[in-house]
């Protein structure tokens, strides 16, 4: 089996390993494979050759651009602005299609309002009870009820009962 190839086609741009082609070939020849390498022809750049290629490529690109921007009758020429804007968010806009958006409001109902007021009062009383119970079990060193300071009746700054002249 003989594999014919150009130097640049086998290992890319460089010629890595091709200096030792005999070493590279040795195990392959044992298997009956031989690699024959041709040197690539040197390409001389010619302006005349490139003119038709350039012309053709520019024609193709211009025609494709024309197709993309081709307007149908009465179409707004600025339509691409809107298209680009909505193309970017199309997924999020259509994700919840075929569903119901719930933008409900609360309507006043006499009985519902009454029941709500009742529930609110009950809730407030319950919170108050819990708060009282919590405060009774809480030892505040600055407001010690056992030693009758500050909050006590006798030390209340808003009454002067202790300094008043008593009848007894």
């Amino acid at each position, binding site marked *: 089996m003989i594999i014919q190839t150009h130097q640049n086609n086998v290992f890319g741009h460089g010629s890595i390993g091709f200096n030792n082609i005999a070493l590279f070939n040795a195990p392959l020849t044992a298997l009956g494979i031989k690699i024959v390498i041709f040197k690539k022809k040197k390409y001389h750049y010619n302006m005349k050759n490139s003119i038709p290629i350039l012309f053709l490529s520019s024609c193709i690109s211009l025609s494709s651009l024309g197709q993309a921007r081709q307007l149908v009758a009465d179409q707004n020429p600025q339509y691409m602005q809107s298209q680009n804007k909505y193309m970017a968010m199309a997924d999020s806009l*259509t994700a919840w299609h*075929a*569903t*119901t958006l*719930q933008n*409900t409001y*609360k*309507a006043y109902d006499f009985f519902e309002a009454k029941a709500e007021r009742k529930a609110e009062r009950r809730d407030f009383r319950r919170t108050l009870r819990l708060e009282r119970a919590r405060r009774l079990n809480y030892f505040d060193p600055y407001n010690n009820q056992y030693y009758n300071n500050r909050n006590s009746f006798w030390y209340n700054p808003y009454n002067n009962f202790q300094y008043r002249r008593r009848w007894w």
Partner: protein
Amino acid sequence: MKKFTLLFAMAVLLFTINSCSRKVSRVSPDEQIDISGRWNNTDSRLTAEQMIGDILKANWFTNFMQAKQGQKPVLICGFVDNKSHEHIEAETFIKDLEQSFIKTQKVRLVQAGKKREELRGERADQQTNASVSTMKKFGMEVGADYILQGSINSIVDSHKRKKVVYYQINLELTDMQTSEVVWIGDKKIAKYVKN
């Protein structure tokens, strides 16, 4: 006397057992049962019936058929905006409407929203997992000609024991190309509730 006491006890026991046990029975979905006065299955059914009756008899349908040489219009379902005071799921009557489109074969329907996302996901999966002969291609979906959108509004007027609830359900059909509204269907339901 003893007999009477025994009978009385039995009667009380029976009454207690009866009153505590829950009873469930199947009823026809067409039967009108109003319990709280809120939006219920009867309202949904009435809306669906009205909309089905209106949408396929309206002028937009014949206009489209004439303009497109007998082609069937393709519809997609958009949002239904519930702006009422209650939680109302529009899918109950929208599905009835969609079902009628398919049953009558007058209108073609394309999938929308999350379901469409799901099937695109499945199609993407087929690109790597399905055999080449059965694999479905991207970019071959049918584009909708019209989009169906809707809104639900309500007005509540209540004083002490009396309440009047008014629902207005609107469905609109809009031309996808021109944004022209070609049909608006409505269903108005008013309820008088006395507590």
